[in-house]
């Protein structure tokens, strides 16, 4: 007989999450840009938005920002991105 040990983990089964299906095209879509709030990230995201609109025909860009890179996005931001966007890019620069 061996020993009986106790599991030290919280056993929260978060499972494997599947990726959402890829979009066929960005044309006419709404794309969310989540700024994680690193310094100067806004310059990168401004350019990214421009590229999405002019080169890929993205119809709307929804810009949202986290309070800090080290905190999760708020429920409100998450809900808006999920409900209003066809795709979301979580973006950072430093």
């Amino acid at each position: 007989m061996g020993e009986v040990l106790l599991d030290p983990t919280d056993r929260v089964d978060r499972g494997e999450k599947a990726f959402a299906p890829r979009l066929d095209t960005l044309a006419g879509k709404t794309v969310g840009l989540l700024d994680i709030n690193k310094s100067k990230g806004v310059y990168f995201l401004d350019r990214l938005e421009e590229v999405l609109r002019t080169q890929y025909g993205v119809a709307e860009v929804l810009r949202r920002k986290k309070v800090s890179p080290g905190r999760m996005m708020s429920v409100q931001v998450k809900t808006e991105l999920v409900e209003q966007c066809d795709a979301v890019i979580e973006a950072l620069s430093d």
Partner: protein
Amino acid sequence: MPQPVSLRSQRIQTHEEDPVELMYARGVTDGLPVVPPTEERVKRMLAVVDRDPQELLGTVGPNYGRATVEKVAINAVMAGCHPSYFPVVIAATSALCDEKFNTHALNVTTFSATPLTIINGPIRQAIGVNCGHNALGHGFRANATIGRTLRLLIINIGGAKPQEITKATMGHPAQYTFCVGENEEESPWEPLHVEKGFRPEQSTVTLFGGHSPFQINDHASRTAEQLALSIGWTMASVWNHKNFPLFSDTTLIICPEHAKTFAQDRWSKNDLRQFLFEKIRKPLRELHPGVNGGEGAGVSMIPLKNSQTEPPVDDTLFPKFPALDSIMIIVAGGTAGRFSAVVPGLARGDFGSRITTREIQP
């Protein structure tokens, strides 16, 4: 008669295999072997506190797993804690779960921050927390295993595994364990917990989200001002020598001999803080990106462009430390030697991590 304790954690039956190896195989260690958490050992840990094992102390980031008293006891056993340390572990876990401390941030950043646990009050002597020679080093069970318990909780409850969720670029040895007692007996100043409003006879844990410690060697300064300049300009290089001001809090651990030098000139902790804040400054011309390195980010972060403030010019002096209260000072270490230490912090305030203190309930 105490009620029999009922534990709810899943049982892991071992057979022929070595239980130490089994725990490695389950990915629940920090890389060092753990003490197998048998029911008997966990119950001995739980027996020293009058708490329901299912009481929720909080959730541990980054995955926000549930830290019940039972789960904390299991991890404390694995870390090697003596049961007498468990009240300290409970208080430290409560601080670890405080959103203001933000364990999530500590463990998802590339920065390599880890909780530095500082213990104050009479519990230090009661359980043998080392505050003297080798205070930040090896050799003392309480320091080694209390600090290690927090790391195991972050792994096993918080879900932070390196190269998976945890993306620390470099990491550092204090991530295994980082726990120190303040050497209150050799300090000329009020101890940290009294500064924070607790009575001397209370015991506390304080968590600071910190980097690896860096020793500051000064054997020659004989006045408080000389020593403060020596320590301050060495601290000026943390994060990067161009990061003026820092975005972070900073912990300064003063050794007893250095503390005596400050005390002989009647400097308080606040005098030292004020001096560091006022004197450790550099002009903007030395902080531009490209001057002695490409970095130079600190200046861009402070709000200068408003109607009340003139834009900075090359002679404008910028402080290393963003605020007086960004410098936390304790005394620790042995009575021989003039080596203090600085522990750089993760970003401060709501943006990052706030220093968090809890009373240790007996």
